[in-house]
């Protein structure tokens, strides 16, 4: 029991993910800054931001639904954390695993977007409501390609469990090369999920101030921001587990170091992507996702299906 | 040297029977004309539609004592500016809008309304410009008898 509690709250649970999330935010911001010819923030900046925000007053808009407004940041954080404990890190086994955990993780990762929507919608500010509506519209565009691109390797591995996928690919490393397209699609879809450029449409600063988060302040905003940082880490970990399952059999220490490298690599890719492109418009984003990304993801899925047929 | 400019002057004199003294060619590309307010509409349309003055650079309001003036600065693509000056009585400063021909005049005419207290007939409804919505009525800042401390003494109505 004590072991489980430690696992959930300290390592590799809440404290670890929070610390890693803040570090990831720092690395993302620093890389982004360096690529833009800037110096960037010092290492403690995300933590300092968090502490400062936590010390500020929580302002709840008069017309907002107070319960939903206050509850959403916590729901976002818990769902992300729950998803994390099913993702394998240094070995091919996650902390907790069961047969259908892949589907559960995918759904748990959809919850944060819903909380952005609900939090924004019930703040009853025009900017928030437009941002919330955009969050949800965007969700329908990237979710299908993301699901398809992650289900493809699952199909190849013939399992619905993340640990199973890791196990399969660490014994068949060549097979992962077959999923390169899926990996790229997953990265693009992850940009949408994390609401980063070019898909930061729901919080486009120059149009709708901060989108769904416009009315949030103080501790609630700090929690939301931490949730987004954690989502970054969890999303990257998920992709690392599914698409980069290398070196899982060198023991925990090496495996953990490798895990960090993989996640940072994916974060680096995300920083690079947001450095080199402009924000799309919501209609362009949906067109792009449905007309380019989704068919590609579907082809990847088909390809895996055929490969599996041939292989058996 | 000033062929085009003189030609514009000639055309205005001939067509509208303006006296030649009222129109001066100041230098290359600068023609100034004093026109009677009654005929202004016609002359303006003629200049804009027939003489090729397709740009309305701006409208300047003037406080000339007993009268209020307005100068319409019209420009050709080739760089010639025709400045049409009209005067209206200070106690009845009514002019007609030119915003049908030049939509951009909307802002210039609202300036005349707010700053000189002119009445512009035919100006489409819209937000006032440039003064704030709670600016007291009857205060026209660019008139010469208006001093900046006048405002402190009058009532400023909130959200008028």
């Amino acid at each position, binding site marked *: 029991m004590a072991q489980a509690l430690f696992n959930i709250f300290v390592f590799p649970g809440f404290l670890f993910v929070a610390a890693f999330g803040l570090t990831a935010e720092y690395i993302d911001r620093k890389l982004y800054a360096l690529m*833009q*010819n*800037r110096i960037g923030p010092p290492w403690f900046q995300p933590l300092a931001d968090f502490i400062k925000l936590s010390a500020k007053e929580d302002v709840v808009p008069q017309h907002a639904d107070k319960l939903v407004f206050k509850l959403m940041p916590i729901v976002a954080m818990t769902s992300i954390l729950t998803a994390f404990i099913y993702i394998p890190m240094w070995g091919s086994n996650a902390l907790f695993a069961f047969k259908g955990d892949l589907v559960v993780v995918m759904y748990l990762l959809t919850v944060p977007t819903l909380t952005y929507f609900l939090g924004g919608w019930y703040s009853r500010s*025009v900017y928030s409501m*437009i941002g919330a*509506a*955009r969050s949800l519209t965007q969700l329908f565009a990237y979710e299908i390609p993301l699901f398809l691109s992650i289900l493809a390797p699952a199909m190849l591995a013939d399992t619905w469990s993340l640990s199973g996928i890791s196990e399969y690919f660490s014994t068949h490393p060549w097979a992962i090369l077959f999923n390169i397209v899926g990996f790229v699609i997953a990265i693009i879809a992850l940009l949408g999920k994390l609401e980063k*450029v*070019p898909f930061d449409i729901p919080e*486009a*600063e*120059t*149009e709708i*101030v901060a989108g769904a988060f416009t009315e949030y302040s103080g501790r609630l905003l700090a929690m939301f921001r931490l949730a987004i940082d954690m989502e970054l880490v969890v999303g990257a970990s998920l992709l690392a587990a599914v698409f980069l399952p290398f070196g899982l059999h060198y023991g925990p220490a090496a495996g953990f170091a490798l895990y960090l490298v993989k996640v940072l690599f994916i974060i680096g890719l995300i920083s690079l992507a947001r450095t*080199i*492109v*402009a*924000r*799309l*418009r*919501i*209609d*362009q984003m949906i067109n792009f996702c449905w007309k380019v990304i989704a068919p590609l993801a579907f082809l990847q899925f088909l390809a895996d299906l055929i490969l599996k047929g041939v292989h058996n | 040297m000033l062929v085009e400019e003189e030609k514009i002057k000639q055309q205005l004199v001939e067509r509208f029977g303006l006296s030649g003294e009222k129109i001066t060619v*100041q*230098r290359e*590309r600068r023609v100034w004309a004093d026109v009677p307010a009654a005929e202004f509409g016609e002359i303006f349309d003629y200049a804009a539609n027939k003489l090729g003055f*397709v*740009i*309305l*650079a*701006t409208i*300047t*309001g*003037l*406080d000339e004592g007993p009268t209020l003036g307005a*100068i319409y*600065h019209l*420009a050709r*693509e*080739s*760089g010639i*500016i025709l*400045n049409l000056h009209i005067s209206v009585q200070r106690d009845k400063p009514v002019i007609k809008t030119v915003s049908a021909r030049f*939509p*951009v005049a909307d*802002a*210039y005419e609202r300036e005349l309304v707010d700053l000189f207290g002119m009445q512009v007939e035919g100006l489409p409804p*819209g*937000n006032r*410009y*440039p*003064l*704030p919505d709670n600016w007291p009525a009857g205060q026209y*800042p*660019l008139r010469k008898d208006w*001093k*900046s*401390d006048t*405002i*402190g003494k009058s009532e400023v109505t909130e959200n008028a």
Partner: protein
Amino acid sequence: MPEREVKLTIGPQHPMLKEPESFLLTLRGEKITEMTVRLGYNHRGIEKACEQRTYIQDMYLVERVCGICSHSHSMCLAQTIEEIAGLQVPKRGLYIRTLVAELERIHSHLLWLGVAGHEIGFDTLLMYAWRDRELVMDILAIISGNRVNYGMNVIGGAKRDITPDQIPQILAAVDTLEERTKYYIHVGTEEITLRERLSGVGKLSKEDAIRLGAAGPTVRASGVDRDTRRDDPYGAYGELSFDVVTDNHCDVYGRTLVRLGELMQAYKLIRQILKNLPEGPIAIKAPRKIPAGQAIGRYEAPRGEDVHYVKANGTDKPERVKLRAPTLANVQAVAHMLKDGYLADTPIVIAAIDPCFSCTDRAIATTNLDNGRTDRMEWPALRTYGIDWYSKQGIDFAELNRKLRTMRESN
């Protein structure tokens, strides 16, 4: 998004806007069905203030109409006053003025490029463009001593000379900038998301551009060949060779290309100016009192045409000064461009005219300047003045402070 109409207020304070103005958008989904603009938040009463000051003071005042095109306004006013007074500015003075004018155009267009990048969420472009803008700011600081509000114009000529050792510095900076601008042209034409966000956005046909009286790069990007520098030459432009950059895209993308093209022309102009810089004095002495008369001055500022009208009455103060900044001419065009557009395109469409609302809003003095001069006011005096002013309005701070203290203590 539910298909009902939402009214969205943008401004006077909003991250999209760098200056206060207000747009009321009526949205159906993401589409804009209606828009009204409210300007005037930046009124400082400069036209009235000009009438109360001498010509020399007005030169400084007008320079502060706008933080970006400060040289534009002061040069335009100087030209207009010189025309009334019949002053012939020495050639060297005109060349120096023109040099600063072109440097200012570079600084303004690079600033615009960065802002445009930011408005479409492409912050990398913002950081790059503004990094390069530092080069031209440094050059302006070397020439004039200031990064903005250069104070290079005086009635009758230029105020500071260009020294021989400044010329290589300017040329070196121009070379670097030219190289970078070529890179931006490359990025602008090749980068897909950038093109996607700029192409077809904020359409303004040639006919509409002429009808609505748009100015500057906005009108030139709609295929109208109109540039005051060529059509009504001033400064040294009559003796320099340059192309008027136009474009037929009629959208924000076209406006970007026109500005980038104008940057290239500006480099060309600067090289010509420095090569042909005439010898001689930079200014002639101007009389304090300007003879009665009137004149209109035109100037192609980075954002479009500045129009200044001055009426002199023979004293040392003008009878009337009228300033028109290009943004006022472009506002109607913006309203037209936004209609039926997307909310997401609003920032870039508004930014694409390179709006400068502090230029546009200028006319009234509401502060008290009885003697036509500002007196230096120390901080304590200002504080007392403020407290007195409020107590005249019936607001007593002593009472408020006391209440505040009791509230704190009771907590």
